[in-house]
């Protein structure tokens, strides 16, 4: 891999947004293809961050600044990418379920999803089932992601899924769930399509689900 892309990866890992922006421009000036800058530079950096976060080597603040650095690069690439017709990975509607106000984890998931090329519609926290349904109708996403951090709001995931069925939209989206107390088993029980324990795997899962369609 070129030195420039390696430096870009390092800048993202270090969370240095200014540097990441500069190197992104430099890479383009060197004639490296925008998609390559995105995948082998920016996303590669964010993947390392995901792995280190999962291994508990770094903490939430480091993930936030890395995500910001990646975003800075993505913004510079965006106009160039449009021309190259990189397919968007897909669209995902994300939110923390009703009654629950925890959003740090959900926001990290949003950043990682953006990192791997999803368009993210973030509905925020305390999202009522009807709002999820509205968003499905309005944005026609491929995926819906629900987050819950409280044992007491986990049942709301099930209720939200039932609201999808009642509204006749369940078949139109894949549904993924997550949050500290949620697990694979619970996801299966309530009839979700997938579960991921952390933001990095959430992005992988989302990609896999979109591909299998």
């Amino acid at each position: 891999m070129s030195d420039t892309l390696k430096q870009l990866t390092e800048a993202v890992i270090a969370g240095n947004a200014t540097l990441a922006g500069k190197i992104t421009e430099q890479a383009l000036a060197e004639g490296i293809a925008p998609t390559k800058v995105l995948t082998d530079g920016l996303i590669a950096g964010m993947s390392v961050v995901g792995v280190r976060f999962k291994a508990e080597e770094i903490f939430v603040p480091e993930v936030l600044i890395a995500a910001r650095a990646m975003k800075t690069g993505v913004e510079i690439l965006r106009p160039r990418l449009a021309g190259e017709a990189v397919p968007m990975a897909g669209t995902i509607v994300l939110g923390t379920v009703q009654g629950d106000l925890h959003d740090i984890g959900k926001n990290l998931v949003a950043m990682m999803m953006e990192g791997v090329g999803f368009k993210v519609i973030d509905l925020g926290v305390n999202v009522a089932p009807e709002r999820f349904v509205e968003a499905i109708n309005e944005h026609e996403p491929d995926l819906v992601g629900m987050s819950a951090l409280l044992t007491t709001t986990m049942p709301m995931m099930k209720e939200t899924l039932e609201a999808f069925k009642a509204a006749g939209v369940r078949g139109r989206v894949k549904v993924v769930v997550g949050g500290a107390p949620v697990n694979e088993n619970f996801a299966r029980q309530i009839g979700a399509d997938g579960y991921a324990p952390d933001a990095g795997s959430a992005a992988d899962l989302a990609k896999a689900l979109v591909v299998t369609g």
Partner: protein
Amino acid sequence: MDKMRPVERIKLAVEHKQPDRVPVFPVCVAHAAKNYGITYRDYCTSAENLARAAIHCSRTYGLDGVFVQACGWQEAEAMGVELYYPEDNAPSGKAPIVKTREELKKLRVPDPLKDGRMPMVVKANELVVKEVGHELYVKSQIDQAPFALACELVGFEQAFLLMYDDPSFLHELLEICTETQIRYGKAIASTGVHNVFMGEAIASQISPAQYKEFSLPYNRRVIDAMHELGVTVTLHTCGNSSYILELMADTGADIIEFDSMVDIAEAKRRVGDRVCLQGNVDTGLVLQGTPDEVEAAAKDCIEKAASGGGFILACGCEPAPNTPQANLHALVAAAKKYGRYPITQ
């Protein structure tokens, strides 16, 4: 059968001595309201209700202490953050109020006898101390530790970014938060409570180096001020605070309360000689498990942390509102059954 007064039992544990048995004191908030049969909103907006519900909860289970905590947002509220109050859930902030230096300049240390619900909490403590202070250990919130309070004022993610982007902004804000805690703590200490409680759930999400810079020195100042008034301090974190146990002990806190993600045997080994440990049965288990499972988990905590004293049995965090009574009874029973001193490891 228990001969010692509960307040003495906890005091001895805090002094690293061995009481007659392991004290048991899960800190109930939403569950206290539910158990008393009132909504959270009614619980957290009236001194009378708060005091009654807290005492009722301790009496229901035979806890060794009473915990007085309205909610985790009331210092922020007294400083100007608008809250929304769900009918039967803890209130929370609508939006951060410190986004710019101008807003920071305008921020004032609230007056605990005038602003927000601070006077209500002071009043509730007066009621509790008067009624049960001779018998039960009274612990009151001064709650959000400076860094946690700063997060509420600027927004959690913003606070994290400020650590990198503008640390001096954050430090200035932390000065005000520290002063807020000290003043509030003084007002609460004057009611005669035995212990004040500082919570910093968010501390489990930052690195040890960040904790050292943005939390520890400020916590230490609040704690020193409380010690000058003769009041002991509990420092509480939710989540996995394994990384920062020593640093939490370095704050000078008398009690460290930590969550079930922390290995209690390891906590005992690392800081058990410096601070009294309070914890750490999983709140999820206490909500969803059987009484037998709770008893087994409590027994495990006692076996790992009680030897030599300096231990209070509790949940890792506040139990969920609809926690079955039988499970909290089982927790208390375990302290009586397995917690008789002397205990050897």
